[in-house]
């Protein structure tokens, strides 16, 4: 009954055969796998000097938004002659992102630029990186304030919120009823944009009437049902703003199915891939976001400046990006105006 031997003590009562394991075959298999491993690794030559390496870490790899950022970053790195490594976790998990960052720390790159999945969880490892003498930038999503040397932000929340309201007002002729479908009520960035939309309406469009704000928790199906309900509850509704990437296509779908395309204006913040169909068939005239490709390019440009020991200055002109806004007090660099996708330009963007 001694079954606790080290190794496999289990034979589950089956008849045992006496044929010994063939060690030859195992060894051959071991060697084959090892050789395969080495070959795969050998395809990726190591940079000789990591001090000139820029590492760009997204929240997760393999989604169109971050792929677009990667492409922009690679173009910029090529122009500058910089070595760029783009790597990150395969799912949006703060713990996994920190593990990837831990490994990158040991490589001691020149600049580490991170889009933080969870600011709280990523901040300790970024602080450690700075103690090791690595330049730390954040992009797309910031760590806790004061952690990164610079935060490369997509767009100024005030400008974005006001811009979306302006777009809707232009389509509705500056008067009429409209509703807003937002994402989660707890999402701080969405709430900030929402606040600026409301303020823009109050200040500039007194004849426009915001009838209600509903939250769809970034669930496209729920947003679709809510949009249908809005259309029924307010037959004279003139417009819907989708304040999350799932809400805009859902609102467009509901308006199209109700046969109200052209009567009810739909706009908001969403990606070209999600909105292409509705923009092309005319249900939606304009949808707004920013260009993640420019975000990646700007991050690499700022990384190059930081490595050279320069300080970014307000209004500096970045090749391929344009003039950018630098807020020295909050160590933030803003890419510029929001980007509108219309029938004319949506074909150029894929994310």
């Amino acid at each position: 009954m001694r079954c606790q031997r080290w190794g496999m003590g289990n034979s589950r009562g089956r008849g045992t055969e006496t044929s010994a394991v063939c060690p030859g075959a195992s060894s051959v298999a071991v060697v084959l796998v090892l050789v395969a491993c080495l070959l795969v690794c050998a395809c990726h030559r190591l940079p000789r000097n990591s001090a000139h390496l820029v590492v760009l870490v997204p929240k997760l790899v393999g989604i169109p938004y971050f792929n677009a950022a990667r492409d922009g970053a690679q173009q910029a790195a090529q122009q500058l002659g910089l070595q760029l490594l783009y790597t990150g976790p395969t799912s949006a998990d703060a713990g996994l992102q920190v593990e990837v960052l831990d490994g990158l720390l040991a490589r001691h790159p020149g600049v580490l630029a991170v889009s933080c999945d969870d600011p709280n969880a990523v901040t300790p490892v970024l602080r450690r990186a700075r103690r090791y003498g690595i330049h730390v930038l954040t992009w797309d999503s910031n760590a806790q304030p004061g952690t990164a040397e610079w935060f490369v932000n997509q767009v100024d929340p005030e400008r974005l919120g006001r811009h979306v309201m302006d777009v809707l007002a232009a389509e509705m002729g500056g008067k009429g009823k409209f509703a807003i479908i937002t994402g989660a009520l707890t999402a701080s960035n969405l709430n900030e944009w929402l606040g600026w939309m409301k303020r823009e309406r109050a200040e500039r469009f007194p004849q426009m009437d915001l009838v209600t704000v509903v939250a769809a928790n970034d669930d496209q199906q729920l947003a679709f049902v809510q949009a249908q309900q809005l259309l029924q509850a307010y037959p004279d509704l003139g417009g819907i703003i989708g304040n999350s990437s799932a809400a805009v296509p859902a609102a467009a779908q509901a308006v199209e199915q109700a046969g109200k395309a052209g009567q009810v204006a739909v706009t908001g913040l969403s990606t070209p891939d999600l909105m292409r169909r509705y923009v092309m068939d005319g249900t939606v005239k304009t949808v707004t976001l920013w260009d993640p490709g420019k975000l990646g390019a700007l991050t690499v440009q700022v990384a190059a400046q930081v490595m050279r020991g320069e300080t970014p200055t307000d209004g500096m002109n970045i090749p391929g990006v344009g003039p950018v806004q630098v807020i020295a007090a909050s160590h933030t660099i803003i890419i510029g105006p929001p980007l509108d996708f219309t029938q004319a330009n949506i074909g150029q963007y894929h994310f």
Partner: protein
Amino acid sequence: MTGTRHRPELPQPLVVGALLALFCAYVGWRSGDFWTAANWQLLVQPMAEAGLVALGMTLVIATGGIDLSVGSIIGLSAVAAAWAAQHHAGATGIALTALLIGGGCGACNGLLIGVLGLSPILVTLGTMIFFGGLAVTVSAGASFAGFPDTLLHLSDADWVGVPVVFLIFILVAVGVYLAARYSLWGRYLLHQGQSPVAARFSAMPIRSSLFGVYTVQGLFCGLASLLMVARLASARADMGQALLLTAIAGVVLGGTPVMGGAATVPGTVIGIATFYVVGNGLTLLGVPTFVQTALVAGLLLFAVGLANQLRSGRTAA
């Protein structure tokens, strides 16, 4: 019932360990950053967390069971620790809260599986969703960051250069090894895994043994959540979710048969180390994460295939 006659065999942990050593040698040759103290100090911290879960999982799997709720228990313990921190409990209070909640969750599993005799996979599937949902509800899905510095220093503390969290992991591993190998409790667990029917009809206290093993797993999850909170300086309901599959894979890679009946604790330590060292080495070599995932999965399949080949010499599988 169990054959103990001598057969030539190559224990799976040794094979995996040898592969790991070769891999380390190769990465060390390719990258000057691999054999640095800083790299290993960073590397062993997440490894210790997953290792604790895997040690508990080794015992659970040895009984022929499984615990799918570990990720949710870690999340709930971390959220409970955050709650304690918000109510100005000291580091000790926070630690006790996390361990208490972890152990309590484990005891729930143990009660349902051991005492009521329900199926482990169904019970822990249910509690995985339940504990996970509870953690999200209590925390409202938000991340909490206000832990006292005394707790956060746990991740920086070291003893002659070896991180304390790693020492905790090794101490627990030795304890689990001794318990599985020499204690009566360990023997009951293995018998349950080998033949649940025979175990039920024997005089062995199977119910309380099973209750104990799931409670211990819960405690280890609580401890892992504490280490995670210290390392990430924050708590979130979903923070342990990635550890479930890593822990199971580490146990299997180490040579514990997935059907139960045996436990190899040193194998689990080697299996978990393999995952983290290979991941770290590939990151240092600049291998894309998608390729890393595929390579690590390939390693797991290879080890399982090898184990099958080794075992087929002994059992007509």
